[in-house]
């Protein structure tokens, strides 16, 4: 996954973001190769890719779903990931087809810093909820 930086997209501006703004749905899979990369990056010792009933490490499906947001808005230098909420509801298998839908859930000012909250819901092909993520970012001035 490549997340475009500011040079490619318009910056995310607090005053222009609207609560309820939706982003393009993302249909994606998490192939075995990406799981292998994750295991290497995180030195994760769990046997995720065993022959019988392989599974995807839980956090991968929470990472890739942010893509539609950053394809519309570039990450302005200085943007800080301030908080994250994750709810795991159903395990994912490598190669399984997933669909995520994201929107601006909230924005607020706290201690003079401007925050935006993105909510992303991911389901499998049968419409079963896989996970729910809420990303809180601090936007640079």
């Amino acid at each position, binding site marked *: 996954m490549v*997340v475009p930086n500011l040079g490619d997209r318009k910056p995310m501006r607090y005053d222009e973001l609207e609560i309820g703004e939706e982003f393009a749905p993302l249909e994606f899979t998490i192939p075995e190769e990406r799981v292998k990369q994750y295991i290497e990056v*995180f030195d994760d010792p769990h046997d995720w890719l065993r022959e019988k009933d392989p*599974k995807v490490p839980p956090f991968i499906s929470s990472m890739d779903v942010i893509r539609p947001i950053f394809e519309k808005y570039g990450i302005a230098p200085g943007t800080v*990931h*301030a*908080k*994250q*909420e*994750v709810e795991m509801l159903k395990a994912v298998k490598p190669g399984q087809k997933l669909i995520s839908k994201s929107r601006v859930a909230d924005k607020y000012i706290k201690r003079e810093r401007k925050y935006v909250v993105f909510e992303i819901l991911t389901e499998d092909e049968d419409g079963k909820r896989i996970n729910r993520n809420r990303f809180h970012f601090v936007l640079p001035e």
Partner: protein
Amino acid sequence: MSEAKNSIKAGDEIPSLEKSMDQAKIDQFAGFSGDFNPIHVNEEFAKQVGLGGTIAHGAISLGYFCEMLVSFFGEDWLDHGGFSVSFIGPVRPGYKLKYRAAVTELAEDEKGGRVNLEIWCENQDGVKLIVGRAHGPLEESATG
């Protein structure tokens, strides 16, 4: 699945996870995620914006929290688990990190019994950098 889970109670800590952070790891994660925000990979930029130097992506620690929680709860955590954390201090290259969790209560939700925990990450000086809460599935046998 951990046998310790069978007798867990409020106040207990689950096994912690220790990791080291360095710029190579941050750069590696930037490549994996595609997030090359200069606060993570450009020392001079990070200083210019007042961060004192590069900081690790928050997502790296989230992956480590997942590892700790899966190690304790087993893969059932993928079907009935979660966490909510705030990043209150920067994770910097050179830090030795400890990911920890302590049980706050045994409860119920729509999926059944659950263990609620307080979770945090601290550096080598015991300074908390990430704080929040988590939950995982509770087997019925654990309430006995």
